[in-house]
């Protein structure tokens, strides 16, 4: 058999094993056709080498190992700081019990799963707004340890491909009308609750997230879910999240400081089952209200496919996820994963709309509830402890 260009290139690059080298040498001696080919290859190789040699570093461009090592250390320090402030920001946005865990999950979930459908029609940037809330039961039997092993990867993803910026400061205000003025919407409070709440207006935030598909796939792989399909054009898609100002009213003894200062820079692997009740006394009731966060994404993303992936990641079977995903309007529905062994949930009529009531299971010493509903584009979340039916009546007394 005659020699091909590849054999000859490897031969002249001296990259053949000695036996192969010998074969090529012998064949060349005997075969004129291959000799001509060899001359052409040699000439080509010499020329390319010459042309590429101009890229060789000049003396002034030589590497300085020590300098690079020093700068690497600086980058590590900087990253650590950023990571910490990243988590502090994410965590301080949550501020209140239940939300501590919920928002961390939500931020990731929102970023990944809620680009818009409307965009498909308008061929413009899509927009997601919360109009309804749907609960996805999560199977925690295998999730906690998975979440833990994935958390550095998620953290990594958040630190590398995410920018997150808090716009303004958290301000304490004296009453609802001041809060309304600052937040730009009509702030309502439950008239049934005694005493005046501590009112704060949290700054809005905006973030953008560039999807690094290989990294997302790596996370899925760590979760043991490399079977989950993601659209290829997700890679490098820029997803923008805008979180408007929110107003928090706290009644009773709520330890909010602990969340702001006491959380570790990353999720604590020991806290696979976070005991939220430790963060709030039994008389702590918190109401958060905010204009709907918005998420925009490139128009050509297959949102339903993303939704299916998200549902599968939350523990649904592919068939379940498919049929569930078809029922959801992904551009207007906030989907919240709720671990079924930690909490139960039900739909309730509240404040003139359908809301979702999530209850921590009774195993917890001081079980809390979280009632969420959307009315007039405002998302409300009410968290307290004790009788969950009281939550509904509190919410119905909103003025």
């Amino acid at each position, binding site marked *: 058999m005659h020699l*091909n*260009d*590849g*054999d*000859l*290139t*490897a*031969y002249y*690059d001296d*990259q053949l094993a000695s036996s192969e080298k010998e074969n090529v040498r012998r064949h060349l001696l005997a075969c004129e056709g291959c000799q001509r080919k060899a001359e052409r*290859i040699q000439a*080509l*190789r010499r*020329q*390319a*080498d010459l*042309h*590429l*040699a*101009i*890229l*060789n*570093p000049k003396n*002034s*461009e030589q*590497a300085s*190992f020590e*300098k*690079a*090592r020093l*700068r*690497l250390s600086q*980058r*590590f320090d900087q*990253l650590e700081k950023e990571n910490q402030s990243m988590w502090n920001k994410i965590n301080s946005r949550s501020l209140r019990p239940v939300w501590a865990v919920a928002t961390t999950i939500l931020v990731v979930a929102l970023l990944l799963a809620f680009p818009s459908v409307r965009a498909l029609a308008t061929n413009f940037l899509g927009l997601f707004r919360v109009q309804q809330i749907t609960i996805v039961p999560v199977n925690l039997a295998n999730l906690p340890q998975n979440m833990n092993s994935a958390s*550095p*990867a998620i953290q*990594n993803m958040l630190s*590398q491909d995410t920018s997150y910026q808090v716009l303004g400061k958290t301000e304490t205000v004296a009453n609802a009308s001041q809060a309304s003025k600052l937040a730009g919407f009509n702030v309502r409070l439950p008239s049934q609750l005694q005493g005046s709440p501590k009112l704060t207006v949290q700054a809005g935030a905006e973030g953008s997230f560039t999807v690094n598909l290989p990294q997302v796939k*790596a996370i899925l792989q*760590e979760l043991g879910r490399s079977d989950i399909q993601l659209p290829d054009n997700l890679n490098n898609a820029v997803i923008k999240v805008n979180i408007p100002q929110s107003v928090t009213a706290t009644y009773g003894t709520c330890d909010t400081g602990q969340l702001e200062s*006491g959380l*570790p820079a990353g999720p*604590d*692997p*020991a806290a696979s089952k976070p005991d939220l009740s430790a963060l709030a006394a039994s008389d702590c009731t918190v109401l958060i209200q905010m204009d709907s966060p918005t998420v925009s994404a490139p128009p050509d993303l297959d949102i339903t496919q993303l939704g299916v992936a998200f549902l599968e990641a939350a523990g649904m079977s592919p068939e379940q996820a498919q049929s569930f995903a078809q029922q959801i309007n992904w551009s207007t529905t906030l989907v919240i994963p709720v671990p079924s062994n930690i909490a139960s949930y039900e739909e309730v009529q509240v404040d003139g709309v359908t809301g979702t009531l999530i209850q921590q299971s009774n195993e917890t010493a001081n079980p809390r509830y979280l009632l969420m509903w959307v009315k007039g584009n405002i998302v409300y979340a009410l968290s307290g402890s004790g009788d969950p039916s009281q939550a509904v009546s509190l919410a119905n007394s909103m003025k």
Partner: protein
Amino acid sequence: MVNVKERRIPKEKALEASFEEIFHSHWPRVYGVLIRLLGDPDEAEDISLEAFLRLHNHLAQSVQMDHVGGWLYRVSSNLGLNALRSKKRRKLYEDQAAADLMAQESDRPDPLDEVEASETRKQVRKILTSMKPRSAQILVLRASGFTYQEIAETLRVSQASIGSLLSRAQADFEKRYRKADGG
């Protein structure tokens, strides 16, 4: 939270030690590839460090890797090519060519040579960005002194296929070079 940190220490120490070793043995070559691609020492250093930061993250997550070197050279050459391709970058190296020139003019006997060399470097890099990424990678890796085995690990192809990949990449490069040269 304190005890969590304490628990992590032995693993972290092992990680840091092996990372340090990897950095020591691979950084000069990673930089070598990137300086060829980018021509700007600061940027080459910056991107080489980026590649190592990513490696560190991977190691911290205990991601399985067969060939750390291959992974590093793949990631850094990809990052380098992307940087080279971006518009900003193109503008930057035009400016840099001009800066090069100014710096050279003072101490070089024949500034014209340097004008030409600087133009040629620009040309060669432009050609590399116009080629298939893998072809550009393979050419730069060989120019940086990589063996076929190392190139194969970097591009995740069999070592036996490197010869033909290289000969095709060379031919493609030369064709584009001649075309750019007006020939």
